[in-house]
């Protein structure tokens, strides 16, 4: 097994007729993903690379049995698209869209509480279970099927980590970009729970960065509930304090969010933290070696 995606995942692409949607649909199909439907309101009846387009997610589900949606929908319409998918009942919603207003996301989070759907992202490169299915924009070929779960807030840094890990001879069970926005769907902590229960996953690599306290929450949870090796890297040790929110923002987060605090918290929870991004793969290998 893997998490979120496997061979049986049936993907519906929201925004399939857009430039991004078309391009990545092709890429996903080439990777072997079962893209069964697309959605663009008003374009029902069209086809993109032979894939039928519907006016609504509900119709895509009724007609093609889609159970995962991926969004390449422009920011003004993306929150609505997420909620449409959730109301229609897909299991996972993967939102690639970057730049969704934060007030929209606050409403999305409230809306999702009354549904059974889980959201990945927004501002995520997507999810890949190598060898099985890819719902995202990551280059599929750098990945390899295997035993390492990867979760990250970043895109290209994840590719770097994947590359290093493959270099050491390991593949991935599932690699997930959880999204770079301040408010996102599924957290590291929740994903750890999935990885814990997943047979294929033997260890997890977490790529964090400054801001928020998602890494700390994951660490505290992992200390109690996660039995597999967990290795982490936190980007942003040299980054200046976030300019965006000013001082009030720093208070509301209780002064959390600094890389040094995160690293300390993770280490206290017994997690191995890599301090040089060039040896992410190597460190993981060492940790796994020690355990054997």
């Amino acid at each position, binding site marked *: 097994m893997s998490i979120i995606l496997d061979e049986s995942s049936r993907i519906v692409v929201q925004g399939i007729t857009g430039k991004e949607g078309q391009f990545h649909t092709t*890429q996903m199909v080439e990777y072997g993903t079962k893209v069964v439907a697309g959605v663009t309101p008003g374009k029902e009846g069209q086809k993109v690379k032979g894939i039928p387009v519907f006016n609504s997610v509900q119709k895509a589900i009724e007609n093609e049995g889609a159970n995962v949606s991926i969004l390449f929908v422009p920011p003004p319409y993306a929150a609505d698209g997420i909620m449409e998918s959730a109301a229609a009942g897909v299991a996972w919603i993967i939102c690639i869209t970057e730049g969704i207003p934060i007030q929209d996301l606050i409403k999305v989070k409230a809306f999702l509480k009354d549904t059974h759907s889980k959201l990945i992202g927004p501002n995520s490169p997507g999810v890949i279970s190598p060898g099985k299915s890819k719902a995202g924009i990551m280059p599929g070929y750098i990945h390899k099927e295997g035993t390492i779960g990867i979760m990250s807030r970043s895109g290209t840094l994840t590719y*770097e980590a994947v590359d290093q890990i493959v270099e050491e001879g390991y593949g991935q069970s599932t690699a997930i970009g959880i999204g770079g926005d301040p408010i996102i769907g599924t957290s590291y902590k929740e994903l750890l729970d999935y990885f814990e229960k997943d047979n294929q996953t033997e260890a997890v690599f977490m790529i964090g960065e400054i801001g928020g306290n998602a890494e700390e929450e994951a660490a505290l949870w992992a200390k109690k509930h996660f039995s597999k090796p967990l290795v982490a890297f936190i*980007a942003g040790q040299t980054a200046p304090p976030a300019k965006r929110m000013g001082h*009030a923002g720093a208070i509301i987060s209780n002064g959390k969010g600094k890389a040094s605090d995160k690293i300390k918290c993770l280490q206290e929870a017994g997690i191995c933290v890599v301090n040089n991004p060039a040896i992410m793969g190597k460190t993981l290998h060492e940790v796994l070696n020690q355990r054997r």
Partner: protein
Amino acid sequence: MKIHEYQAKLLFQDYHIPIPRGNIAQTPEEARSVAETLGGDTFVVKAQILAGGRGQAGGVRIVHTPEEVAKTAQDLLGKTLITSQTSSSGEKIQTVLIEEGIKIQKEFYASILTDRSAEKNALMVSTEGGMDIEKIASTLPEKILIEHIHPATGILPFQKRKIASLLRLSKQETQEVGELFDALYLLFTELDASLVEINPLVLTKKASFLALDAKITFDDNALYRHQELLSFRDIQSLDESERIAREAGLSYIPLDGNVGCMVNGAGLAMATMDIIKYYGGNPANFLDIGGGARVETIAKGIQILVSDPKIKAILINIFGGIVRCDRVALGIIEALKSVDVHIPLVIRLKGTNSKEAASLLEKSSLSFILADTLSEAAKKAVAAAKT
């Protein structure tokens, strides 16, 4: 997007949040005229810059005659103000706000902002108005109240009672401050703000509330639905480099180091800065060129780095995914035709078509230092900056 105090106060007026009487001026003459129209015997002249920390830097002055107002305006206008929150080059004052003097009974702090951890908006109140809220948080945390706002309910009566209890308000004052917070929250959500701050919020001797200061930051991602706010944008107050970056859609933050870097993706950009530091260098900036990596974008990025005299070497670190490295290489070659680079340039192109990229770069007549791994790239850039 940050806006000036006087602009924020215009929006406050739209939402019936009480502010002192006043007006702006861009010349000493205008300032005198504003003061004369206001009347009274006390005036506050406030430099309009986007950064905080104005007060300590001498950007807010109290005077007593229209004559003094004109003189103070003369002093401030055109001057560059350096505060604890500006960059070292400071911010130029182009406008002053002149307001009536207010007789103050009590000063409070009030703000609404988004709490990413709670995934909700929150209101923050403190008894300690006019002070740096971060300082209060570290010294007098019990003087701060934070209440999360549920999107389905808005600010609830029990939360208003909590505010009143902290601020020790009378029933009448509680009612008034409750309405003020409702208005503030309405402004915040309707205009997609990420921070609205009143510091100080004062209770006047006449027992009514007044926003003595006003600070609003908007969510850039939501500006598309607030065309009316775009006229508030003050490109003039930005650094030349920051302006170029914004126009080119680059995410750029200048720092004090000597190794410039240009990377695709924010996470990898931060990791690149970290590894420069790890190998003994000092990153000069954060610069994320995003996913597209068009020739023009790359050119602008290099131009920004080259124009920073502190930078002694540049590291370009690109992990090609959907964006092919050979395309990026062509972009760099093309870009370097229009930008003159006198400092060492370390390039690492990894991922899709990286081999083709390397051969393209080698074939070009330009001089680079090529690197394969992240550590190699960082080491080479740090070494190059030292020579």
